[in-house]
């Protein structure tokens, strides 16, 4: 690999050719401030906060955009640079409604952080007139867009197009009218938006935030006439700590449960329980589809490949972009919605509670879950199955509001009835996890033997590559599954909707034949979800993934079909996977949506 030598602030640095000045400075331990730059996204070079002086060059250089070259002399802190940097921040602040103390992102704002560092004289510039007549788009159940906070860094636009292939957000107009807009400036709930919240995760200011339901949840908690149940998604426990003083990648499952009990939730249950249930239903559904295709010669195209349905961002995406493939999506509800439907039926009956008095809250790493809970079909219990969805960030905020010293909380266990879970459920939070969990159960169901991988770790479907493919040949089937004997199952795992789009294109064009595809809308799966602590980058996501696999390895039950509470649920209530009752409560349908 060719290397390049340059000096930055008189320090000699040798880096790979093709790196930017910013990369080189970071390698050398020299800090350069940035705003539009994000490690997950392509270079924009538009905020200009990162400008540096290059000796012999007339203008300052955007260090995030300029590649290093031999003999370059860079100065990152000259008077020229300092003045330009301060001016650029002053300009940005003049187009930003600096209503910091009232802002949802107060203390979590990159612009505010830079202002704190570089602005030390009173503002001289005139606030731009546009700040006097702004509108806030609060049409979406998941995302709030406030243009008066926008600094046009276009991170959201790059996220939405590059990572997610959605392009709900785009740049419109030019000059002083330039803004981040939607198709024809329509409200967010009326465009092709998957509510994935990846834009929220990357917005440096308060321009894009989740719609929060903190007050609604407090109201429920403080109402003596309600019974508030809460479910916690797998990926929350490996990221919540980041907001509350722990290092990235620390598991805080027990403290999270303690905190929820302290907040006053009447029952702290686990989405992992319904993740196990999902495996029972979805695994059975996959085998049923395989049987129909292999033995009854059913129309293969509408049944296979079967895709997962846990990720509501993915569901909305396929409804918009590949409506011809809606029959290929598993009819299973997501674990959140299975939980919601059971909370106001099974749980209510067992606990002898009036379901009308139950408020069902979920803690999710996700903003799309807010939309999912609002879908009109998600009322199988006769009530809204999940009343409020909080992101990991919102929960952290409630914990801080309540004055809970999170770090010193004792570890507690989830409550019973719908609180037990297997390791297979925990890994739902990482890309490839649903696939792995499904294989652990389905393979064993069909052959009577455990999956042939050491410690049940199905390594080929783990990892962070955007699309991963694996083939598993089924051998030694039990008699009733003999139609699967020798069948080579073709599997694919995709995370991030751009990768999902590529897999679906390959399917559509007949270039790929899969039996089962796992799709997670967010990079890294739920652990990189739009509701997770900010910032996000590949290193953070990797650490969260490691934490998830540690949690799995430490569980005494590793397979969904061995979860005793799930088995009890079938025995007492649902009868069997894909039963009539299951269909009523745990399965759903999808809707073709417009694509512009």
């Amino acid at each position, binding site marked *: 690999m060719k290397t390049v030598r340059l000096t930055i602030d008189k320090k000699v640095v040798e880096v790979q050719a093709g790196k930017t000045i910013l990369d080189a400075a970071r390698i050398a331990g020299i800090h350069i401030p940035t705003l539009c730059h994000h490690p997950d996204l392509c270079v924009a070079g538009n905020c200009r*906060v990162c400008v540096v002086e290059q000796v012999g060059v007339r203008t300052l250089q*955007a260090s995030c955009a300029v590649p290093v070259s031999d003999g370059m002399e860079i100065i990152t802190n000259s008077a020229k640079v300092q003045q330009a940097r301060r*001016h650029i921040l002053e300009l940005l602040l003049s187009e930003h409604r600096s209503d910091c103390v009232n802002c949802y992102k107060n203390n979590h704002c990159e612009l505010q952080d830079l202002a704190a560092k570089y602005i030390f004289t009173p503002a001289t510039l*005139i606030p*731009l007139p546009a700040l006097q007549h702004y509108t806030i788009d609060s049409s979406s159940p998941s995302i709030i867009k406030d243009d008066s906070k926008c600094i*046009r860094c276009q991170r959201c636009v790059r996220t939405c197009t590059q990572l997610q292939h959605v392009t709900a957000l785009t740049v419109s107009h030019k000059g002083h009218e*330039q803004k981040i807009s939607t198709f024809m400036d329509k409200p967010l709930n009326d465009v092709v938006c998957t509510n994935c919240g990846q834009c929220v995760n990357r917005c440096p200011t308060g321009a894009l935030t989740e719609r929060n339901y903190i007050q609604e949840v407090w109201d429920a908690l403080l109402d003596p006439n309600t019974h508030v149940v809460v479910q916690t998604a797998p990926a929350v426990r490996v990221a919540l700590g980041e907001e509350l003083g722990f290092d990235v990648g620390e598991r805080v499952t027990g403290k999270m449960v303690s905190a929820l009990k302290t907040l006053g939730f009447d029952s702290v249950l686990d989405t992992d329980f319904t993740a196990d249930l999902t495996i029972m239903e979805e695994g059975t559904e996959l085998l049923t589809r395989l049987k129909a295709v292999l033995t009854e010669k059913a129309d293969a195209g509408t049944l296979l490949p079967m895709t997962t349905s846990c990720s509501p961002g993915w569901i909305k995406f396929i409804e918009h972009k590949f409506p011809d493939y809606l029959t290929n999506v598993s009819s299973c509800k997501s674990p959140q919605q299975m939980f919601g439907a059971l909370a106001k039926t099974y749980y209510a009956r067992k606990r002898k509670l009036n379901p009308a008095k139950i408020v069902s809250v979920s803690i999710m790493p996700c903003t799309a879950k807010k939309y999912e809970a609002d879908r009109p079909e998600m009322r199988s219990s006769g009530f809204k199955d999940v009343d409020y969805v909080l992101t990991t960030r919102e929960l952290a905020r409630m914990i801080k509001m309540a004055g809970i010293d999170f770090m010193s909380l004792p570890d507690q266990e989830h409550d019973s009835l719908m609180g037990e879970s297997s390791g297979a459920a925990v890994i739902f939070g990482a890309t490839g996890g649903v696939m792995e969990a499904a294989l652990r159960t389905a393979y064993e169901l069909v052959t009577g033997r455990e999956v042939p991988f050491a410690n049940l770790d199905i390594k080929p479907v783990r990892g962070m590559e955007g699309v991963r493919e694996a083939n598993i040949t089924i051998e030694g089937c039990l008699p009733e599954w003999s139609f699967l004997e020798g069948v080579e199952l073709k599997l694919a795992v995709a995370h991030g909707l751009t990768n999902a789009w590529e897999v679906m294109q390959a399917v559509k064009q007949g270039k790929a034949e899969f039996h089962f595809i796992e799709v997670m809308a967010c990079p890294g799966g739920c652990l990189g979800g739009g509701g997770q602590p900010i910032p996000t980058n590949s290193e953070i996501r990797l650490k969260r993934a490691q934490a998830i696999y540690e949690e799995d390895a430490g569980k005494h039950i590793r397979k969904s079909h061995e979860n005793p509470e799930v088995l009890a649920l079938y025995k007492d209530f649902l009868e069997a996977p894909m039963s009539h009752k299951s269909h009523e409560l745990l399965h759903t349908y999808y809707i073709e949506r417009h694509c512009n």
Partner: protein
Amino acid sequence: METMTNTSTVRKTDLIFGRSLDTLTLLRNAMQRDKDGLIQELIDSGLRGRGGAGFPTGLKWKFAKGAPGNKKYIICNADEGEPGTFKDRVILEKAADKVFAGMGLCGWLTGATKGFIYLRNEYIWMRNHILAQMNDMNEAFRQMKLDFSIGLKMGSGAYVCGEETALIESMESKRGEPRNKPPFPAIAGYEDKPTVVNNVETWVYALLISYIGADVFAAYGTEQSTGSKLFSVSGDTPKPGVYELEMGMKLSDFVAEFGDGDTKSVQVGGASGFCVPRRKFDQVIIGFEGIPTGGSMMLFNSHRSMYHVLHNFLEFFMEESCGQCTPCRVGCQQLLLGIEAVKSKTKPAQYLDTLMEFTETMRLASKCGLGQSVGNAFNSIVNEFYEEMIY
């Protein structure tokens, strides 16, 4: 083309529209020559881009010739958008064949097989005329066995698309926004292939130099500003129009020729250029050693308010900034708000000095030439006509 009086101290030339060999003969002759020799001739001629930025044309062609890859592009920048510039229009009306032949020559020299003319949308009325000339030339290329053809792309009306990388983005059907540089178009331009982008006028001079030679061309003008160029003369002048003049003239001579006797200032190089007040007319050379121009020369007499002139320019920039980079997008708005605030006394006069500090940041930190040059007009007008800004 307009005629001038014989007593003029400004030296008129007649290369572009004057009598010369037939265009195809010029091209055929040029293609008889050694390629490297011809590029050297261009370098020796001192020809610099006539769009305003003034990059040495021969060097640009040399880079493109040396650039690796077998797919290269030639683009004629006919997005003539600088306020006060209208000379490319006249060239395209009267000598489009020379423009296309110049592009063909560059294609032959650099190995590019495809060229485009990017025509500003406001010139759509010329489209049929240009297409006819272009088709004739494409046919001539075919007959000459020159593997090169030209296509037409229409702009959509954004000033910034005159910036070559924004122009390329626009040609690729994207938002017309300048790219990060490097890489420059000579290495990675249209469709990320080596691309030569030149102004309409530059193509004609390049073709002519292949015939008249570097020495004859360089005999015109000055050492740093060789040759002649077209000027678009407008404003308070009895004879507005397009004139081909020698480079390197004194502004006082220009004003003597074109002024109305009451010239207060001349805006050299359009809205992105510099304003020169009367007392500096005899100190300013129009050329790369002084103040260069893409052709725009706007004269203002004493009836004009320089506050209104500046206000007009700033409104223009505020709208025409592409909006992607902070210094230009917000800076242009702040400059306009700022002069209005000073005029209305809601900000003190010293605020003008603060604004001039901001134009320095715009010059240093903007992504492209648009934002970098807003301070040219701003600082020169504010400095030279300070009182007019305040009272």
